[in-house]
């Protein structure tokens, strides 16, 4: 249908181009839609002929109007094809009386500038955690008998931090750590070493004899 019409309308080139575009858009879709497009395309074409006969300027005005109309009809046809011929949207079935806020897009932060130019340095690093070992008589006894070392430790340190610090500083693995806070406000940590380490050797290495 389209190629037959084209050579007849080559006089009004703009209109024909739009019509052929419309009809080609129709042909890409299903047959029913294309039939509807062709029907709609026919009406402007019939309108053109009387317009062409009247005068030079009027034909131009007519053709641009028709062009827009044809274009919109073609677009509508295309839309109808994609969404079906019903104009209303399908309503969602709600099973509860409450309306819960649907999940919306949550974007990650992409700051334009860091708030702090330099990130804070960790003030509780392993040097700061272990202050010094204890060398009292009871501490010595612990070293000999229980394979434990006794340290005075930063009060803000917890057991896992103490364990990591001891490992980093003295290369020993701790079996368990017991902590207490002394009456003078300092934290004491009893670090029991694993069986494969000897507390006495480690103590010698550190400097507490």
């Amino acid at each position, binding site marked *: 249908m389209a190629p037959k019409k084209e050579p007849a309308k080559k006089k009004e080139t703009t209109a024909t181009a739009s019509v052929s575009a419309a009809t080609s858009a129709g042909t890409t879709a299903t047959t029913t839609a294309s039939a509807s497009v062709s029907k709609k395309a026919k009406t402007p074409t019939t309108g053109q002929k009387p317009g062409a006969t009247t005068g030079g300027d009027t034909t131009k005005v007519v053709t641009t109007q028709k062009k827009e109309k044809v274009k919109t009809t073609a677009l509508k046809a295309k839309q109808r094809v994609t969404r079906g011929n019903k104009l209303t949207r399908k309503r969602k079935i709600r099973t509860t009386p409450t309306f819960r806020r649907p999940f919306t897009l949550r974007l990650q932060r992409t700051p*334009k*500038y*860091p*708030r*702090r*130019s*330099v990130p804070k340095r960790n003030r509780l690093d392993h*040097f700061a955690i*272990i*202050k*010094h*070992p*204890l*060398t009292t008589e009871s501490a010595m006894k612990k070293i000999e008998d229980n394979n434990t070392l006794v340290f005075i430790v930063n009060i803000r340190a917890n057991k896992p931090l103490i364990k990591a610090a001891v490992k980093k*500083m003295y290369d020993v693995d701790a079996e368990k750590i017991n902590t207490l806070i002394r009456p003078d406000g300092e934290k004491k940590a009893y670090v029991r070493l694993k069986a494969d380490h000897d507390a006495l050797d480690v103590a010698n290495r*550190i*400097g*507490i*004899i």
Partner: protein
Amino acid sequence: MTRIKCTDLRGKKPDDLQKQLEDLRQELNVLRVGKVTGSGGAAKLSKIRSVRKSIARVLIVTHQTTKENLRKLYHGKKFKPKDLRPKKTRAIRRLLTRKEKSIRSAKTKRKQWAFPRRVYGVKA
């Protein structure tokens, strides 16, 4: 140990400074153990102070060079980190800028141009 000077430290690379920092902190640790065990003697005990101050110097130099480099990096950019912006006072930061204060409407500009303040002198 010879006295660590800031001028010497400023020439060093950041990796060297980090290494020096670690060495100093190890030394401090040893000194503190010595203090507890009672082994040191007066010389070692007084050394604690100098080591602490040296550590401070290294940290100062590290921080200052980092900050300086960051300022260079952000120079001329529209958005800077807040600690690189001028601190002044909270109130001053919220005042109108000089440019904002100097804005005049077209009407006032025309008036000022058309009717400027004249200065007269009375002839004696």
